[in-house]
């Protein structure tokens, strides 16, 4: 009888510990609006046409390392990052890097004009509130995600990124096959 009680308490204790660690795992921390960080989880798909009319699908980019950048024309830090992204696409494209960017401007014309002016030669799609929510809330820009070759989000960077550190992460992800 005593042994059965001890066993029961052990099982309950294990269950409680498992519950605690499940809550602390990657990608499950929630903010006040119930959104998760998504790091460690599969990236939600993005399937829409880019500003040139070409179809963009994250699912179709499996096998590549994806740098997914949310930005807006009125965001000064976003514009600082763009020339480096253009350079990285040229430098690392052959190794499997694909940059995809999402403008969260309220309308398309300013985004289109900036894409032309900054010579962004990677796919740029228009985002919206629903897409932002699916990515755990994009409540300020820039926000950058690094997605590995299996489609799993490995990093989320809010705000202007340390470009040197980001480049190091990209190189490490490209090297890992």
């Amino acid at each position, binding site marked *: 009888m005593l042994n059965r009680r001890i066993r029961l308490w052990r099982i309950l204790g294990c269950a409680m510990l498992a519950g605690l660690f499940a809550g602390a795992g990657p990608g499950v921390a929630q*903010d*006040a*609006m119930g959104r998760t960080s998504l790091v460690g989880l599969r990236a939600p798909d993005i399937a829409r046409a880019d500003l040139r009319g070409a179809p963009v699908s994250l699912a179709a980019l499996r096998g590549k390392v994806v740098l997914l950048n949310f930005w*807006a024309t*009125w*965001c*000064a*830090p976003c514009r600082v990052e763009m020339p480096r992204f253009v350079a990285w696409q040229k430098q690392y494209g052959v190794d499997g890097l694909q940059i995809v960017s999402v403008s*969260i*401007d*309220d309308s398309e014309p300013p985004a289109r004009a900036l894409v032309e002016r900054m010579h962004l030669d990677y796919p740029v799609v228009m*985002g*919206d*509130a629903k897409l*932002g*929510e699916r990515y755990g*809330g*994009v*409540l*300020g*820009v820039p926000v950058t995600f690094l997605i590995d070759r299996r489609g799993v989000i490995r990093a989320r960077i*809010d*705000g*202007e990124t340390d470009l040197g550190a980001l480049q190091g992460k990209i190189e490490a992800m490209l090297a890992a096959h």
Partner: protein
Amino acid sequence: MRRSSTIGSGMKRVRGCTGTILFGLCAAALAVSSVHAQLNQPVSASVIPRDRLLEPDALNHELQSNPHGSLILQVGSKVLFDQAHIHGAEYAGPGSRPRGIAALRSRVANLPRGQAIVLYCGCCPWDRCPNIGSAWQLLQQMGFTNVKVLHIANNFGSDWVSRGYRAESTH
């Protein structure tokens, strides 16, 4: 002698007129460039006096004790507003765009000038926000005397939502 003095005074008058015209032209050019600058260059958040800034924890506290005390207006991105905004806040349009300034002007046009208003944006770090400075300036020009501005150091996500302060989405 008399004739030459008449010619001399005539010349002076012409010079005086030319000076006035040149001065007028310069003033007009300055005015046009100032309007141009207002429309194209974002007004820095640093134009807002420190004593008009409200920290997020202070506004959160104020909202808990008096939820309907102030009219809260977001003057940034609609996409960001739709995802999350301060509970009870209204969208007023981006302060960096003429359409946003027009929307803000129209929203507050009929309000008493002593109305308590809180402006916020949170699209970008405070010192790079393109919207908040011009929205503040507009309300000053319109004569509002009880305006405060939420000081969002990083962005709305990290400085409001992540702190667990009350927010809601549009849908």
